């Protein structure tokens, strides 16, 4: 199966391990992964700040880049959501309407792809310890991918998933919100790290690098030893390692 | 006598082009949501469900029949000794009528505002209800036949006589009945109250307090054969 990877700008610049894990994981699951270099950014930062016109330039670049893809898979719930919106955003644009809808229809978040397209709900990786899963808002509420990550994590060997108090509350990232409304974002993430600390775990696992950057950034400032992992990194671990 | 309508035409003309014109077809609700009460009532009696839900809103239910009704009322009223009891009930039941005449001050329209003062001075207000809702332990009072609104509002304790046959599953059935009453040309209730337990508020630090403006206590008397 040919899969085209959309790494996302956060992965490209800050979280190379997540990109590497995603590619290795998909290859292990029998996929051929290609990576068109023209890809840059889904346009979210500008779009969600209200800059529709400017963000469309970024979006068109992505639509062009992924024209030939069969499946576009991305390790980011919020970026997958953004691509799913392209069909609506360009609906009235004669030139881009079809192409954008095609991209929307073939885009998947990573765990969604593994469980619902590849039909795999168990990957024999190992991670010893206790963890909480951070449910990112865009992925769960808006993209509707709720059970897939939990299903996959439940089958990871030696891993004990614990509940996270007030998991439904946003971590405070919200893209540009984290710098435009830094004070509020800070209070929100502090409540999140308090809940994580109360859970007494070794790892916090998530599926969106934005959230992980936010939560991880705060945990690091607090000098906490809880390790922050992307679900791709967890699923890509060798058995027994 | 009809009331005045002022400034309607100009008001509506300002946005007439932004809404639909003309008369929409009488709309049947496309989506008809279900309540779990109906499946519950397949296995339990409606009065049992009513009593259970009344309990959760702090309304105590005493079960009786027409014969023993006045005894039950007497027992309730004994708890308040010499305090005034007000009633607003129209009934064919002679025994009940006699008890009310002897034991209570009656809501008497010709006495006008004096009735309201009387309600404010009464410890107990006794009324019937027109409908009761199993889903929430609610009683519905309509003020036709000059049933005073204040009787169920001003006294500290509200005693409601509920004919068992008047219990319906939920708001849906009650609204259909109310609709029927309101569409009558000759007379209609000017006030329909859905009352669910004593009055309460959580406005102070989210702590529930009971009896803020309305009654502090509600007592249901369920008459099984009415």
């Amino acid at each position, binding site marked *: 199966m040919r899969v085209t990877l959309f790494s996302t700008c956060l992965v490209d610049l800050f979280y190379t391990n997540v990109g590497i894990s995603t590619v290795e994981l998909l290859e292990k699951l029998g996929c051929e992964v290609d990576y068109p270099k023209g890809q840059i950014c889904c346009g979210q930062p500008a779009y969600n700040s209200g800059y529709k016109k400017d963000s469309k330039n970024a979006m068109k670049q992505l639509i062009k880049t992924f024209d030939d893809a069969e499946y576009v898979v991305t390790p980011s719930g919020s970026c997958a959501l953004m691509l799913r919106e392209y069909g609506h955003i360009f609906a009235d644009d004669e030139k881009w309407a079809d192409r954008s809808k095609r991209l929307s229809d073939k885009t998947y978040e990573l765990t969604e792809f593994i469980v619902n397209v590849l039909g795999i709900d168990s990957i024999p990786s190992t991670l010893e310890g206790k963890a909480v899963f951070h449910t990112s808002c865009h992925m769960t509420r808006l993209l509707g991918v709720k059970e897939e990550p939990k299903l996959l994590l439940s089958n990871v060997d030696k891993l004990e998933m614990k509940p996270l108090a007030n998991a439904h509350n946003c971590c405070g990232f919200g893209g540009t919100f984290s710098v435009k409304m830094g004070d509020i974002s800070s209070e929100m993430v502090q409540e999140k790290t308090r809940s994580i600390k109360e859970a007494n775990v070794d790892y916090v696992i998530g599926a969106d690098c934005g959230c992980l950057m936010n939560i991880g950034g705060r945990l*690091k400032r607090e000098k906490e030893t809880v390790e922050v992992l992307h679900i791709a990194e967890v699923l890509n671990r060798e058995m027994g390692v | 006598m009809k009331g005045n309508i002022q400034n309607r035409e100009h008001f509506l003309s300002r946005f007439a082009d932004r809404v639909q014109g003309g008369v929409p077809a009488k709309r049947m609700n496309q989506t008809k949501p279900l309540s779990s009460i109906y499946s519950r009532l397949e296995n339990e009696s409606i009065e049992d469900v009513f009593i259970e839900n009344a309990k959760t809103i702090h309304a105590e239910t005493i079960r009786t029949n027409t014969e023993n009704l006045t005894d039950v009322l007497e027992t309730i009223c004994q708890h308040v000794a010499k305090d005034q009891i007000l009633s607003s009930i129209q009934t064919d039941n002679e025994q009940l009528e006699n008890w009310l005449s002897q034991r209570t001050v009656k809501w008497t329209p010709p006495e006008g505002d004096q009735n309201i003062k009387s309600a404010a001075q009464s410890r107990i207000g006794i009324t019937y209800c027109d409908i009761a809702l199993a889903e929430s332990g609610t009683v519905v009072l309509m003020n036709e036949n000059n049933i005073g609104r204040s009787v169920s509002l001003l006294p500290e304790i509200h005693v409601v006589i509920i004919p068992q046959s008047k219990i319906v599953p939920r708001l849906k059935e009650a609204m259909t009945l109310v609709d029927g009453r309101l569409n009558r040309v000759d007379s209609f209730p000017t006030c329909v109250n859905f009352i669910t337990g004593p009055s309460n508020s959580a406005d102070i630090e989210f702590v529930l307090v009971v009896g803020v403006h309305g009654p502090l206590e509600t007592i249901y008397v369920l008459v099984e054969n009415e």
Partner: protein
Amino acid sequence: MSIKIKEGKFKERVTDEMKNDFMRKAVSGAQDSLGNRRLLSTDKLGDWESWRTAGNEIRKHTIDNLTHYLTMLSEQISAKGGHVYFAETDEDARNYIKDVVKKKNAKKIVKSKSMVTEEIGLNAALEEIDCEVIETDLGEYILQVDDHDPPSHIVAPALHKKKEQIRDVFIEKLGYDKTEDPGELAKHSRKMLREKFLNAEVGITGCNFAVAETGTICIVTNEGNARMVTTIPKTQITVMGMERLVPSLEDLDIMVSLLTRAAVGQPISSYVTLLNGPKAEEEVDGPEDLHVVIVDNGRSKILGTEFQDILNCIRCGACLNVCPVYRHIGGHSYGSIYPGPVGAVLTPLLDGYDDHKDLPYASTLCGACTDVCPVKIPLHDLLLKHRQEIVEQGGRAPMSEKLLMKAFGFGASSGGLYESGTKIATVSLKMLLRNKETISNGPGMMKEWTNSKEFPTPKTSRFRDWMSKHESEKKHDER
């Protein structure tokens, strides 16, 4: 009071409010408690998504046909003996109500909770003509006694007040001599307000839902104060936003069922009162005269725009109860009588962007509000639409941001530019940061982040560099 409750800048208000530990604890406690109750009650009802869909259909249909239903409503109220006044502006509404009160020579007025009367500044206008206007909702009463402290929540307006604060105000202003126990405070309020009710000449109410087919005014409370206000005074004035109606009693069932569960997790409130005209002639209690004032005050401007869905709102407050931003900044930060997500959408529409352009940005677009809204208003989408409006209206977005976004649009549209740009950036940053894993003290806007969090250092070797190597290794292996 009008729609705006505080002057000054949003960010300054937020800084102040976030220092208020009591308010923050009160709000998060209320959110957690109401959230649980809401879920329990909607689970118990069953089929909640269908209820929401039905609610959305009813409200959408009503607003789409607003002219028809407002006409029907006014005809029905009039047929039952009530008067109807259509008020285009807040001033029109205030003047009509003042006229009614003056004609009755009335001075003593009691009010049940009504957001729209706060919006139009009614109390101050009546006080100007020497009327005593008493708020009878316990929360609103407390705020009024405490020098008109503005409300911080749609359903629990005094959420930000400590019981000790309330006790002290009651001692100072109401001859109170007991403790801060909420039961005792409420008992004293009952006594004070009972006397006001019994002597009031005019009762003013809001309206949760008006029913067009029957001319019914439906008021939903837990306290019973709306019943008091509509039972004892001889004149009743009901003020309603022009969008607060439904076609039939069958629709009212669905709306009330949604409202009380979404708002406070109850299957129904203690009192749901349906008022049909003034009292009949032979009746003793109830108003002799009923006036219904239907208020526009900017709502009709929203019709036919992409924001029209906000007119479906039934003021349940559920969106406030789930908003993770409201949780920390509280109601007063919004500077409007309508706080939270609904306030952030509605306030700029009714009162313009000048004073309120920060509100749509006070959100991570997490979607919790949209998810919970009992009538399916796409609140977070509307916040995004506001942001688009603000940007498109020119002068409103900061110039630095506009330039940044233009650069982004340019940079992100060219693969080559991105390639070289990021390569240069990552290498130079690495040199500056000398192998530090994270940035603790960022420049400019990054300070907003690094004030409380570490920011990761960009890797010199980007993922795409690894990928290129990986792809060529694979090709090599295949040969």
